[in-house]
């Protein structure tokens, strides 16, 4: 099964690597080729230097046969734009998008995306820890 990860920052690099460990064939896109050093085993992940919202780059990455698409750069507009192109143009079945603002999670979930909000996830994790301490 093929996966595309847009953004090779800390989150993108870990996500790509975990996907490889789960047996997915992963391509990572980042405009800065220097970002690929974050991948723990670059030999097992294909990195393409380019903008993950551009049709040509996405085609080269195999968006047409891709089963999972994750847009996890640190820019909201780039993530949402990439996710829209993946879903509406390439018809990728599972599209994951990172947004920074917890208030936008619901809106994009309604649009059919799997939404990841690191702020929200961290707050929930912290709250769970606080709650378990209290018991």
């Amino acid at each position, binding site marked *: 099964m093929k996966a595309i990860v847009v953004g090779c920052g800390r989150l993108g690099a870990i996500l790509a690597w975990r996907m490889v460990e789960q047996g997915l064939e992963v391509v990572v896109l980042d405009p800065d080729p220097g970002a690929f050093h974050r991948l723990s085993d670059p030999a097992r992940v294909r990195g393409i230097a380019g903008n993950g*919202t551009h049709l040509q780059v996405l085609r080269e990455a195999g968006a047409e046969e891709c089963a999972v698409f994750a847009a996890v750069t640190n820019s909201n507009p780039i993530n949402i734009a990439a996710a829209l192109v993946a879903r509406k143009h390439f018809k990728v079945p599972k599209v994951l998008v990172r947004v920074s603002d917890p208030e936008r999670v619901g809106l994009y979930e309604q649009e059919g995306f799997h939404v990841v909000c690191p702020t929200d996830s961290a707050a929930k994790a912290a709250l769970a820890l606080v709650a378990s301490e209290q018991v």
Partner: protein
Amino acid sequence: MYVIVCGTGQIAYNLTVDLTSRGHEVTVVSLDPELCEHVKERCKCSAIEGFSYDPKVLGDAGIERAETLVGCELTDEENLVVCHLAKVLNPSVRTVALVRSPENDEVYREIAVDIPVNATMTLVLAIEQKVTAANVIALGHLQRTNMDIIGGVISEGSSLADKSVGDLNLPPGVLLISIVRGEELIVPHGGTFLRPGDEIIALAEPSKAPELTSQLSL
């Protein structure tokens, strides 16, 4: 018409000046506080400082009653995201966006941009015309059918001069609309003769424009 203009910079500013001077109601959404102050003062319109692609900001701008939203942010991605968000919040809004990368036109139209305005191609065409043929100009472009409206003057020695419209042999995909001779507007028919100095207006597929250009001047 109620229009929301999203963006920073000269294009957003001048568009707002133009729209308000024509009597349209405009709200500007911009990250640039100076732009917001300027348009409030000069155009007497409202302005909101914030991210245009934030649902709360678009809500404050009155997206639910807007007829048109124009995205002229700095990047194509921002414009796509704001147009998509606008359609989610108000499906009947018409979206116009500045698109810088020509390859994005088609796919953005597919997703959420009703009218992509391709800044790069518009400039390229304008410059190309100045460079290649001063006597032929593009008067407009029909988005839906992808046809150009072209105007041009028939020069002495043009292969079209002194021929009747019926004998013109225009390239396929080119339709003659009218002829302007001096002050007179002529609706052409098969027997109308073209003369040097006549200005013709034609509808043409964009790929046929160069052929028509060379016929006018040769």
